[in-house]
């Protein structure tokens, strides 16, 4: 059976056999090359010299130890939100609430740090991560339970909760005398801002000299490995994969799909919330509503997860790649590489990778009967 594409004589034939491994390997590479060509065309059309732009990008993100450190700063939240999205999407659960779960994580972690941060990092760090995970999991439980027991679409409910969490964040700092807000002195009222957490609760960076790795990035690496094992090698992971790929089979085998659905949502929310904790512990040391909301790490995390094809280990690579692009946008910000290009490039890469997936699911035949395989 084949579907005719509009205007182009291309036929898609569903692959009945396993996708050849060379196709699986060549597809993302081809997608990246294709994306590279399109971005180059856009740069040329915008009157930029592509070589200069790429050079500026590499210098800002890759070619020195300090540049790589900067890339890791941008990659840290993306790795964590990417893993959160990957674990849910791999299971066919469309949690797009990573954004809000990240805010909740930042709120919980900064609250704990303000309360007990002075007792030292040994207590503060695990307490911050734990508090964030609990908060994020509970926030994610709302769409999880609504879906499992009332059948409410989790895409839409988790999206609505992102706005609610953002408003909670705004309220805690801008329009209340909350525990998080700095209320000491007149200047604190002039420009509303949060209390700075005690220095003892600042997360340690690993490295020396010009090079440093944020602690949150290391947490992300450990989580990536754990998730990989969880999905591939545990009974829970097996159940989840079966349920995701074929809900009917899962139910027939007595697997509790509703309970599993909620478990995955809790896990995804908890991981996204660590990204929020890391923003506070690693970087800002303050609950900053604008700083947390404007980069849209939660939404970009979905892009990261899709680029990594929901494989936790591949997500590490895609987080580094998007971290490098984001970082170039932030740090170059000049005529050769305007920040607005980051979204354009990220979008194009994602579209190309997403579009290329069709090659692993279908044989693409051009022309009416000719048997050529394009890849």
């Amino acid at each position, binding site marked *: 059976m084949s579907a005719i594409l509009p205007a182009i004589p291309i036929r898609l034939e569903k692959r009945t056999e396993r996708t050849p491994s060379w196709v699986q390997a060549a597809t993302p590479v081809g997608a990246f090359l294709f994306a590279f060509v399109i971005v180059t065309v856009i740069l040329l059309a915008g*009157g930029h010299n592509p070589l200069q732009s790429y050079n500026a990008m590499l210098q800002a993100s890759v070619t020195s130890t300090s540049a790589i450190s900067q890339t890791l700063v941008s990659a840290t939240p993306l790795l964590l939100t990417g893993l959160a999205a990957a674990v849910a999407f791999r299971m066919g659960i469309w949690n*797009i609430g990573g954004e809000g779960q990240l805010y909740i994580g930042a709120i919980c972690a900064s609250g704990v740090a303000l309360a007990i941060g002075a007792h030292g990092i040994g207590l503060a760090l695990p307490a911050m991560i734990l508090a964030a995970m609990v908060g994020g999991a509970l926030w994610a439980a709302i769409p999880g339970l609504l879906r499992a027991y009332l*059948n409410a679409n989790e895409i839409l*409910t988790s999206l*609505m909760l992102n706005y609610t969490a953002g408003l909670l964040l705004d309220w805690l700092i*801008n329009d209340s005398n909350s525990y998080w807000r700095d209320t000491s002195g007149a200047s604190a009222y002039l420009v509303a801002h949060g209390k700075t957490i005690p220095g003892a609760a600042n997360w340690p960076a690993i490295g020396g000299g010009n090079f440093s790795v944020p602690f949150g990035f290391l947490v992300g690496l450990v989580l990536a490995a754990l998730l990989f094992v969880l999905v591939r090698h545990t009974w829970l992971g097996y159940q989840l994969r079966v349920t995701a790929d074929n809900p009917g089979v899962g139910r027939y085998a007595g697997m509790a799909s509703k309970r599993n659905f909620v478990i995955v949502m809790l896990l995804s929310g908890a991981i996204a919330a660590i990204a929020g904790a890391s923003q506070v512990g690693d970087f800002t040391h303050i609950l900053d509503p604008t700083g947390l909301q404007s980069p849209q790490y939660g939404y970009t995390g979905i892009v990261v997860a899709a680029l990594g094809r929901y494989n936790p280990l591949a997500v590490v690579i895609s987080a580094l790649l998007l971290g490098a692009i984001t970082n170039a946008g932030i740090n170059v910000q000049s005529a050769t590489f305007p920040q607005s290009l980051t979204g354009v490039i990220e979008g194009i890469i994602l579209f190309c990778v*997403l579009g290329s997936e069709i090659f692993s699911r279908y044989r693409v035949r051009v022309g009416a009967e000719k048997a050529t395989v394009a890849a």
Partner: protein
Amino acid sequence: MNRGLVIQLIATGIFYGTPMAIAALGELLAERSGVLNLGVEGMMLMGAVVAFWVSRDVSGPNGLVLIIAVLAGAAAAAAVSLIHAFMTITLRANQVVSGLALTIFAGATGLSSYVGDLANLGGNPGRHIMNAINVFGLKDVPILGPIIFNQPALVYISWVIAFAIYWYVNKTRQGLHLRAVGENPEAADAMGVSVTRYRYAHVLIGGALAGVGGSFYTLVISSEWTDGITSGAGWIALALVILAFWRPAGVIAGAYLFGVVSALGANLSARGVQLPPEVFSALPYVLTIAVLAIVSSGWGRGRFGAPAALGVPYARDGG
């Protein structure tokens, strides 16, 4: 609360609700055909930036320039929605991921901002602005005057669009086909309706309407371009479609509710009411979640639920 405040609230609610309503009406068409497009925010921004660009650089009589600007905004947004259509309909990619990619691609740090940079639009005031029309000279009629007879043209156009969509979806043969494509594409295909063609067409119209909604921000509300000027209205439009159970009249009512509620916060705090504005702002989102939970479970599902094939790519071989 006195009567003056209520009238003012409703009038501003309609005003600020209109761009979201127009974008949501477009999304409604796309979703009715079975395609969820989370790229509304990005498409609105494309509409906003291109409409502003045209209004700044094209000279001519005010009305004509504004018409061209709105149409150009619609065309730009439709053009980017074509990417989503190609990805999800032809290449059968995941609609959630593709829609998000569209918002990142075209959104506040993407193509719309890039276009704004290239055309040097930031910080320059526009040269054409759409003012309120004193319809039939009735703007001073008590109560109704300020609410419905003193709005910009796009408000009236949005009512025409809503009615046209209602008529199209429910009363025409093509509308019947559209519903079939969204509810049961296999059956539509068997009837001889081209699922691909219907989905492409409605995603594109949806994109065009998102562009019109976006142009409201740079031609009516503000006469300037700033990155991300729609500030989340596209996401609200997505919520509206659900809140309205995929029905045009509901979209209009819901949009005005959002508009009134967001105006309410500012108005009340200006009058010394001590409730945080965030509470009012959060109300529509919480309401949407509650409504969604109620209509999804049990009694409401068949009557008020989402199109059955929403989010599912269609392939004759079962995809």
